[in-house]
């Protein structure tokens, strides 16, 4: 038998399928259907962890998602390790390796437990009051250098993985008529009702098996059949409906606006040998017409001194272990029941052969409905009493039962407590539904659904306790969700328990508060809560943050309501007057991987490559990221570094010819009778009179008057323009144009179409450009007069229709060939063959930058930074002088834009021609500026110019144009550099080369 504490039969485990596993290096056996927690308990292992602050020994408290104590790390090797898993949710598989956490050197002998000795010092918020000074070193020194590192080492729970995660994660968008969360009786009934109508239904439950509380039922009959049989039939019916999707192992973790619910499905963690390529988890993003929340309720612990010893657990958890997993959590139990469900637990345990020493019920008159059955079974019941002390180092061995401070000790090896039930309103509350305090249920219940959501809570999560009630509630809601308004059905349930209310807060206020735990995981005690209130933290939000109650990985599932009641009691206010802390997603922690999904490596963001990119890759180009594009930055030959490659590329372009892949430039086809008028209103330049076949350099501002984009615009026909934008600006500019076209100037007949990807663009630049193209081009006279600078012609190249622009961003004679993208690679190769014949080369973005800087052409985003006007960069001439309006014009006359002293684009020449300035370096008037000296400006571009045999730089400098001829200073860590201010055109200011 796998585990000494296993019952002989019953439950939902397969006793024949033995599974071996290790915990802290020791081997154990469990069976199929076990969780790690049930298997450990079957082996009599109760001590599974150490607490966060005091390192107290801790056992398994629960059997589900609410577990605060039993956190373990599971390592499957190869980077597949995960900390902080709740043993109650880890499904056992053969070969599972689990470790306890937060202890050293071992779980049984943990040095950190000395913290317990200092526990009086470690009261709530102690760290805000100390670890300051000595004043001499500044109040921060000791904190940062000494205390903080110590605290950091002590804090934290498990260890983060140290290797990259090899697993993959999937995603699915789903839609349905009804999403049912929780597959207990309420959820199953809702799904059955909705499915009957043929609606699309998704039913999810975080557990491995559908059934919820029914999985733990042994004695109950529904409609005359045992609960297990009813469950099997219900699941069969649902599984057979083609429109129903059943998602076990799927947690609904977030409920967002407009019925958008996020689910996390565990796909492989429960498998001994998962298919390596199979996704580990899946994120479901569900948009549901209606949501039925059937998330059940969570049992509340009872707060008494030393209530955290291993072996002290939630009563219903013990019932689940015995009924569902066939595991007795001990042989002699004391049940502390402030709620009738604890009596039912006692009966089920007794049936399974556990000696129930006593039921202790803090309620003065004890339980009602089932107390007869309990008496008949001969179990002693002590009412109006509670546990006032416990014993047992690593496992509870006895409890003292009494009222106030004295009482009798009762020997036991486990204690089962229930303080009543807290409806799981997490998701309801996340959906922004309003909760209301219900005095009878001693709980907050859903009151009103938020606008925009269509939702119903059913069963225990809305206080409809009892299986019959849950089934009926669920069935009605399922029907209502699909429009069957008056659908109702009676379910006959034998031996149902219906009272789940219980008592809140500490059952024995006053006694040994320092060790009466409320939040087990964060070691928050009754005393901590009271101290917070005493220190003026009266809002429950303050109490939470000061004591950290409810802030651990379990987010206070078992503790928040008790904490609230204790604070309310201390402040003398009713519970609802103190309020609740906010429920936030996720319901239980969700791996980053699940949320990130496929977005890794190249799927992190699309990698955009141009049609000519393959060639560049083949010849070993070095790429840079520009937006989502990969652009060839330079084409090193042999062992060239970037500097050498760029110097060579630039030299060849200036002396012979170079080709450049400009395909990434944004392109927009602006078409319509009003196309020219439209561009006129958007760009600073005039367009009405631009002749067909001519081009203009356009500058685009935002309404604030600052440059946001630029590019060459060619008039293809009277009603058709080919507009180019910067690579990064393409989408932005198109959106802006659509905005103006649709909303500002709807009267204009103009339409925009992105053609960025339609064309591959090959720039051919250099004195030999014409010779390179001549043999390839048909139907276009490339001659200087027939095809002057800044013009565009349609023609053919390599037998392919092309738009050929005579433009230059290098200052050389140049053409930009636009061919349909699928021909781009072939045309590139054809041009390359010609280029080679003329001793030319391919050049990348870095050389492009150098070549244009030699000419003083700006790059938007480099010379401009969103605060720069056309005049600032010497483009005032481009503004259409007779224009009454264009985007941004009005802003150009604002006081700060017309003041003197604005930064203006200039050239800088270093006194030492070999020295290349650093981009971003600051410009000052004097050398060795004092700290705090305002800068006159900064260097926007700086390069080695092979053509000029010296360095050049562009800079934005206050009153720059007036300073031409002056000498300024660049302060650098290695010493000051003096520079001469010159006009921002270093080469061929008359433009003779490009007109050649």
């Amino acid at each position: 038998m796998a585990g000494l504490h296993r019952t002989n039969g019953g439950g939902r485990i397969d006793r024949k399928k033995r599974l071996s596993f290790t915990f802290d290096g020791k081997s154990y056996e469990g069976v199929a259907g076990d969780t790690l927690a049930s298997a450990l308990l079957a082996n009599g292992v109760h001590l599974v962890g150490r607490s966060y602050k005091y390192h107290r020994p801790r056992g398994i408290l629960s059997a589900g998602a609410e577990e605060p104590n039993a956190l373990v790390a599971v390592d499957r090797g190869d980077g597949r390790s995960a900390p902080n898993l709740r043993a109650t949710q880890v499904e056992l598989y053969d070969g599972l390796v689990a470790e306890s956490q937060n202890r050293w050197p071992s779980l049984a002998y943990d040095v950190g437990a000395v913290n317990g000795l200092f526990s009086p010092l470690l009261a709530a918020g102690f760290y805000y009051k100390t670890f300051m000074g000595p004043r001499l070193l500044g109040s921060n020194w000791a904190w940062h250098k000494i205390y903080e590192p110590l605290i950091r080492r002590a804090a934290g729970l498990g260890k983060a993985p140290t290797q990259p995660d090899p697993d993959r994660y999937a995603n699915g968008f789903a839609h349905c008529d009804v999403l049912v969360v929780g597959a207990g009786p309420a959820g199953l009934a809702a799904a059955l009702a909705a499915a009957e109508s043929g609606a699309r239904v998704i039913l999810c439950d975080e557990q491995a098996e559908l059934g919820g509380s029914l999985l733990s039922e042994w004695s109950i009959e529904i409609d005359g059949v045992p609960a297990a049989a009813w469950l099997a039939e219900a699941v069969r019916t649902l599984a057979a409906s083609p429109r129903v999707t059943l998602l076990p192992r799927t947690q609904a973790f977030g409920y967002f606006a407009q019925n958008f619910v996020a689910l996390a499905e565990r796909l492989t963690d429960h498998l001994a040998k998962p298919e390596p390529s199979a996704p580990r988890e899946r994120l479901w993003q569900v948009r549901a017409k209606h949501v039925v929340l059937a998330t059940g309720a969570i049992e509340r612990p009872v707060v008494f001194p030393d209530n955290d010893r291993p072996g002290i657990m939630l009563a219903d958890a013990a019932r689940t272990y015995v009924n569902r997993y066939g595991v007795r959590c001990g042989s002699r139990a004391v049940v502390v029941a402030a709620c009738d469900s604890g009596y039912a637990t006692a009966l089920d345990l007794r049936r399974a052969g556990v000696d129930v020493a006593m039921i202790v019920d803090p309620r003065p008159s004890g339980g009602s409905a089932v107390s007869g059955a309990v008496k008949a079974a001969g179990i002693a019941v002590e009412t109006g009493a509670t546990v006032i002390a416990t014993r047992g180092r690593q496992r509870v061995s006895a409890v003292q039962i009494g009222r106030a401070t004295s009482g009798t000790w009762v020997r036991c090896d486990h204690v089962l407590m229930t303080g009543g039930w807290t409806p799981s309103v997490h998701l309801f509350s996340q959906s922004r539904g309003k909760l209301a305090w219900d005095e009878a249920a001693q709980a907050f219940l859903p009151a009103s659904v938020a606008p925009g959501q269509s939702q119903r809570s059913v069963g225990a999560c809305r206080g409809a306790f009892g299986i019959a009630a849950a089934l009926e509630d669920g069935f009605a809601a399922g029907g209502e969700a699909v429009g069957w308004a008056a659908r109702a059905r009676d379910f006959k349930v034998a031996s149902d328990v219906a009272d789940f209310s219980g008592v809140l807060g500490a059952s024995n206020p006053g006694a040994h508060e320092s060790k009466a735990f409320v939040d087990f995981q964060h070691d928050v005690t009754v005393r901590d809560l009271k101290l917070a209130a005493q220190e003026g933290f009266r809002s429950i939000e303050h109490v939470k943050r000061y004591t950290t109650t409810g802030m651990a990985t379990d987010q206070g599932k078992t503790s928040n309501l008790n904490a609230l009641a204790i604070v309310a009691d201390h402040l003398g206010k009713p519970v609802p007057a103190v309020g609740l802390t906010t429920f936030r997603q996720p319901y239980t922690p969700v791996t980053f991987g699940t949320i990130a999904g496929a977005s890794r490596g190249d799927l992190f963001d699309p990698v955009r490559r141009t049609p000519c990119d393959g060639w560049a890759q083949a010849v070993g180009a070095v790429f840079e990221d520009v937006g989502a594009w990969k652009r060839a930055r330079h084409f090193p030959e042999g062992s060239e570094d970037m500097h050498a490659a760029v110097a060579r590329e630039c030299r060849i372009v200036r002396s012979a010819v170079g080709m450049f892949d400009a395909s990434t430039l944004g392109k927009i086809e602006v078409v319509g009778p009003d196309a020219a008028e439209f561009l006129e209103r958007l760009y600073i330049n005039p367009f009405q009179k631009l002749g067909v076949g001519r081009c203009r350099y356009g500058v685009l501002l935002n309404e604030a008057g600052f440059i946001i984009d630029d590019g060459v615009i060619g008039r293809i026909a009277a009603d058709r323009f080919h507009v180019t934008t910067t690579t990064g600006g393409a989408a932005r500019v198109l959106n802006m144009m659509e905005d103006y076209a649709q909303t500002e100037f709807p009267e204009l007949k103009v339409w925009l179409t992105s053609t960025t990807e339609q064309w591959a663009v090959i720039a051919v630049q250099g004195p030999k450009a014409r010779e390179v193209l001549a043999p390839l081009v048909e139907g276009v006279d490339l001659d200087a007069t027939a095809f002057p600078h800044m013009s565009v012609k349609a023609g053919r190249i390599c037998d392919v229709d092309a738009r050929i622009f005579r433009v230059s961003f290098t200052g050389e004679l140049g053409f930009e060939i636009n061919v349909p993208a699928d021909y781009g690679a072939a045309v590139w190769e054809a041009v390359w063959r010609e280029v080679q014949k003329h001793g030319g080369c391919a050049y990348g973005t870095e050389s492009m930058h150098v070549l244009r800087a030699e000419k003083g052409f700006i790059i938007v985003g480099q010379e401009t930074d969103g605060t720069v006007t056309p005049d600032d960069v010497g483009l005032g001439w481009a503004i259409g002088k007779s224009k009454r309006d264009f985007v941004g014009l009005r802003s150009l006359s604002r006081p700060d834009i017309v003041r003197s002293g604005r930064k203006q684009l200039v050239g800088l020449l270093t006194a030492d021609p070999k020295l290349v300035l650093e981009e971003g370096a600051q410009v000052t008037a004097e050398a060795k500026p004092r700290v705090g000296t305002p800068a006159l400006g900064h260097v926007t571009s700086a390069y080695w110019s092979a053509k000029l045999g010296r360095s050049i730089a562009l800079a934005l400098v206050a009153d720059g144009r007036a300073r031409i001829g002056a000498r300024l200073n660049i302060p650098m860590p290695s010493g000051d550099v003096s520079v001469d201010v010159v006009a921002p055109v270093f080469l061929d200011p008359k433009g003779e080369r490009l007109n050649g």
Partner: protein
Amino acid sequence: MRFSLFSLARQALGGHARWPAQWRSPEPKAAYDAVIVGAGGHGLGTAYYLAKAHGLRNIAVVEKGWLGGGNTGRNTTIIRSNYLWEESEAIYELSVKLWETLSDELNYNVMYSPRGVMMLAHTVHDIQVFKRHVHANRLAGIDNEWLTPEEAKAFCSPLNISPKLRYPVLGAALQRRGGTARHDAVAWGYARAASALGVDIIENAEVTAIRRDANGAVEGVETTRGTIKSKKVGVVAAGHTSVLMNMAGVRMPLESYPLQALVSEPVKPVLSCVVMSNTVHAYISQSDKGELVIGAGTDAYTSYSQTGGLHVSAHTLDAICDLFPTFRRMRMMRNWGGIVDVTPDRSPIIGLTPVPGLYVNCGWGTGGFKATPGSAYVFAATMARGEPHPVAAPFALERFTTGRLIDEAAAAAVAH
């Protein structure tokens, strides 16, 4: 009672029974010399410096909820001063200087932890921008240094600097004096110190109207706990500033967006510094308690909902998982939002308003936690003197009319 190890030990012996309330919870008086609307760090700090440095004692801070519950209580606590423009450098550096002694000043451990803020560059453009910052900051006497990818890795071992990354790390700017502080402690520390100086902190009192006299000057506020008179009112309400200023008839250049953050489950120390990447959108540090604290983006639309869409957090987790592939199996424990007040130039608005007696301090958007002490300090001076403190002057509302914007966003788009 002064906080110290000694007092802690003494109180421990007495079962902590004698710790007094950290701040008083008085009933509002009928009138004050100055009323601050909003008990976030900036508002509480303003009250503290008004009392401490300017001799005003009859001050109220009016808060609609619980003090510190706004963005002060929900931010990722990144502190740095390596901003670009001189105006920004001045105010953020003033703040860092104040952070360095704040625990002592307030006798409250605000856990300022100068563990270093590293901002990653992924593109050539990023490098240019960050180097510009490095040079500008050096001139201003603000530490900020350039790291190669290998140096970045040495400073932060879990960082992935593989050139195969979709956007490889090409370098980083590091401000060593940058770091984090405990958000709640900042609010509580200022509240306690201000309260001790006589400032009345009035929680659960929502300002519903701003009263003006016949000349249009401010004469007080109406709150859900009654009318409070004052000829000086300072609005320090972050995301709610537009709503409040609207009560005084002033339209603001603000939009309020939900900004999200999330924490992982706590783990033993794995990340010893703050890492920011604006290009791929990731902001991460590890708190002293062990959670990875991760900043996400804002939703696209304005909202007062303090939540946001899953896709916004997902976007950030994509980036975190790429930059820190070992964190992929870590789990998100809690995800929340705050309402940030965003200005067109991503710089704050501090100073006078067209309404006499009404002052405003807002627009800190996604990055004002770091400025808490400096902002409070200069705003207190501005309110006390009735004219802008020199450090605050460039941040006046008039800049939107003159066009003299302080555009940190355009220059770098780094805001946290």
